């Protein structure tokens, strides 16, 4: 099929077996690639026993998948997926990295990783050579040292073999992933992270430190090359004329999302509005940026800005920080200074932590400290809002699972459940998550930001702000599933119809937006929803309880122009009900039998009988 090699590397780390597999063309047409294909592979391989699969056990799969548009559509990304140690469902976690283009030019569309190695290992792929290697020299290293090792040791070796080729692409885990921290990310390029889902912990559980790929071939053949070139040139022109992301990235949001839309997390989401002018964009540009345009392969948007801070004589590098990092490692922790939050962002990058989920759990802890539920004895030190050094220390404790860090490394929700038991007081109401996943830094109480009141509550990826439920359904997760499957960076998206045209020019599949929304996209959504609801083994979701917002969002906003605004439980419940109806879930939030059958998912329907029985038998007020 055009746009694919239809070749996937299948590695079993337990037995060191490596093979190359293909899928039926029909499967590629139906599930596209990335998130969609990942959901299908996970269902096929693990679906029957999903509830007993430990996400951090050797039986879980780690998938690193490209899509048919990878390398063609501006901005090359991979989708990292598997059973999520945060949600116990599936999260399609996308990551910008040159590994995407190297994998495709090596002649593959993805990597399937099974089992677990008995010692630290890295995977090296050079065209058709696939090797598992001892990672003892890099296990334990942070981002910067890991990258230096790849460039100083492995790259010269590849050059010796292939001649003067360009650098390889790579993904890796930092110390956090190695220690199975559930808020650990799969990293690339120092500052790039597949954060949502906690796949850094999955990669660490497999003792896989890094994947390094070098390809020297072309991209696969496309259906209509001339048309592709015309469309590409048009996209380059359009994307490069949008000045916002290119000039400033998402960094302006660190001031503007708070000030203008009252939807930025401040002090564990107690507030969402601020007017801290010291966080205005000029302070970043003049204070920490050392380079203004930074892109990944094929991307004219260049939303990244390279930043530097010096802390105790040591140089720390990060990007932006982008809005999410600035909010979660800045305002959410009461840190309102540019250098402080840039340092925390760089530290998260260095340790291989997802800044969103880690900033979320740190804000949660700081609130418990303020409330006196956690004491100095519990933490070993005082944790006050805005104390950059204290939060840096806490981040390291989480990474290395020291002291209370061991508990917090389980992520906000799991930590909240355990703390509630230990302290005899319900602290889950301070955990700002949906289905184990931290809510993205775009609040819903003010009603002025893009997510809706029910967007996180009933999304198949929980709090993930890049996959939100919406009405009309064509403007929410059904659309996001296409981005993550094809794979296209949201920031390079212009128009859905044009995107489908682009997909058709590459693949020749003749897809229509209507068929995507009514059949293909819906099939992936239902399959992902089914796996999320089967959940287990440590936590099970009941839609009547868990298809809801964090408790905090029902508290009135205490400051700003939206003072007093909060969500209405009735309104949220009504929207969720309407959403169920529109996508084809029953009144319990479970995919309907007839819808599943019409999508050809009869076996999924059968498996969901367990969930139907569980949900119907539980008592809910």
């Amino acid at each position, binding site marked *: 099929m055009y746009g694919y090699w239809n070749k996937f590397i299948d590695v079993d780390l337990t037995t060191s077996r490596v093979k190359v597999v293909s899928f039926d063309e029909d499967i590629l047409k139906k599930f596209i690639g990335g998130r969609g294909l990942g959901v299908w592979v996970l269902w096929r391989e693990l679906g029957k026993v999903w509830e007993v699969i430990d996400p951090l056990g050797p039986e879980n799969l780690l998938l690193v998948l490209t899509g048919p548009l990878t390398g063609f559509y501006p901005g090359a990304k991979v989708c990292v997926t598997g059973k999520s140690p945060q949600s116990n469902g599936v999260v399609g976690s996308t990551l910008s990295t040159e590994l995407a283009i190297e994998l495709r030019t090596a002649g593959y569309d993805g990597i399937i990783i099974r089992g677990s190695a008995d010692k630290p290992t890295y995977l090296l792929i050079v065209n058709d050579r696939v090797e598992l290697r001892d990672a003892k020299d890099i296990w334990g290293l942070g981002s910067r040292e890991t990258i230096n090792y790849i460039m100083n040791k492995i790259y010269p070796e590849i050059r010796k073999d292939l001649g*003067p080729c360009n650098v390889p692409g790579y993904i890796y885990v930092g110390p956090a992933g190695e220690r199975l921290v559930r808020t650990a990310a799969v990293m690339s390029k120092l500052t790039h992270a597949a954060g949502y889902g906690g796949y850094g912990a999955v990669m660490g559980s497999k003792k896989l430190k890094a994947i390094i790929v070098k390809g020297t071939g072309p991209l696969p053949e496309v259906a209509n090359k001339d048309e592709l070139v015309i469309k590409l040139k048009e996209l380059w022109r359009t994307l490069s004329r949008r000045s916002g992301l290119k000039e400033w990235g998402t960094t302006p949001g660190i001031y503007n999302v708070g000030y203008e839309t009252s939807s930025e997390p401040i002090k564990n989401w107690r507030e969402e509005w601020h007017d801290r002018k010291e966080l205005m964009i000029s302070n970043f540009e003049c204070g920490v940026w050392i380079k203004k345009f930074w892109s990944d*392969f094929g991307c004219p948007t260049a939303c990244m800005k*390279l930043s530097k801070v010096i802390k105790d004589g040591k*140089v720390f590098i990060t*990007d932006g920080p982008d809005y999410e990092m600035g909010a979660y490692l800045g305002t959410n922790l009461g840190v309102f200074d540019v250098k402080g939050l840039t340092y925390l962002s760089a530290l998260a990058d260095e340790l291989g932590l997802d800044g969103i989920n880690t900033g979320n759990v740190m804000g949660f802890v700081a609130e418990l400290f303020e409330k006196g539920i956690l004491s100095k004895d519990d933490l070993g030190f005082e944790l006050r809002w805005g104390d950059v050094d204290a939060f840096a220390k806490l981040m390291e404790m989480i990474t290395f699972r020291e002291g209370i860090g061991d508990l917090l490394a389980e992520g906000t929700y799991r930590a909240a459940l355990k703390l509630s038991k230990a302290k005899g007081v319900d602290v889950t109401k301070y955990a700002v998550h949906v289905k184990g996943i931290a809510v993205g830094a775009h609040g819903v109480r003010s009603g002025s930001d893009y997510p809706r009141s029910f967007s996180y509550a009933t999304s198949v990826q929980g709090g993930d702000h890049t996959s939100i439920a919406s009405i009309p359904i064509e403007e929410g997760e059904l659309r996001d599933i296409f981005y993550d499957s094809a794979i296209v960076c949201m920031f390079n998206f212009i128009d859905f119809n044009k995107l489908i045209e682009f997909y058709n020019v590459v693949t020749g599949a003749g897809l229509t937006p209507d068929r995507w929304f009514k059949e293909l996209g819906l099939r992936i959504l239902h399959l992902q929803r089914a796996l999320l609801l089967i959940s287990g083994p440590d936590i099970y979701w009941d839609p009547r309880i868990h298809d809801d917002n964090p408790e905090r969002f029902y508290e009135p906003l205490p400051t700003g122009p939206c003072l007093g605004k909060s969500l209405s439980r009735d309104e949220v419940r009504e929207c969720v009900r309407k959403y169920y109806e529109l996508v084809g879930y029953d009144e319990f939030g479970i995919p309907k039998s007839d819808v599943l059958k019409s999508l050809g998912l009869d076996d999924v329907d059968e498996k969901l009988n367990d969930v139907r029985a569980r949900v119907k038998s539980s008592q809910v007020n």
Partner: protein
Amino acid sequence: MNSDKEIRHYWVLRDFSRCSGCRLCEVVCSLKHEGKIWPEVSRIRVMELFPGINIPVLCDQCSDYPCIKSCPTNALSVDNKTGAVIVDESKCNGCGVCIESCPAKALKLHPAKGKVIVCDLCGGSPRCVEVCSTLGFNALRLVTKYADIAKAYAIDPMRIHKLVMEKLMGG
């Protein structure tokens, strides 16, 4: 000042601090020369040895042409119009001597054909410069050649990387 040679001969000037690393120069170069998106056969490459430090590498148009002088089969010659190095594929035996002779490490072997590939300035209107300008990065610009200056930039990209890294990041 303007001798004929200076007017006729061109040079792609690189601004390392403006290069974003988008590598669309590689995309358009491989489309022009091979009809495919194929980064490794692009005559220009952007090396990112450390995240954010993007070093575009292509032929620097040395006036003394060490590559041409080194070629044992006379496969390389100078294009009269642009001054670029032209490869006669029928004569190139892929021995790699010219690759070793290049101070800018800009030459390489085509991974499929086994022949040397080098920037031909697209006959005078390089596609890489065009796309970089369209995108507004302007990290690549076509200028008339000042022989001594051009040669000064023809150094190992690893060295350029080290200098830029030290300048931007302080080591």
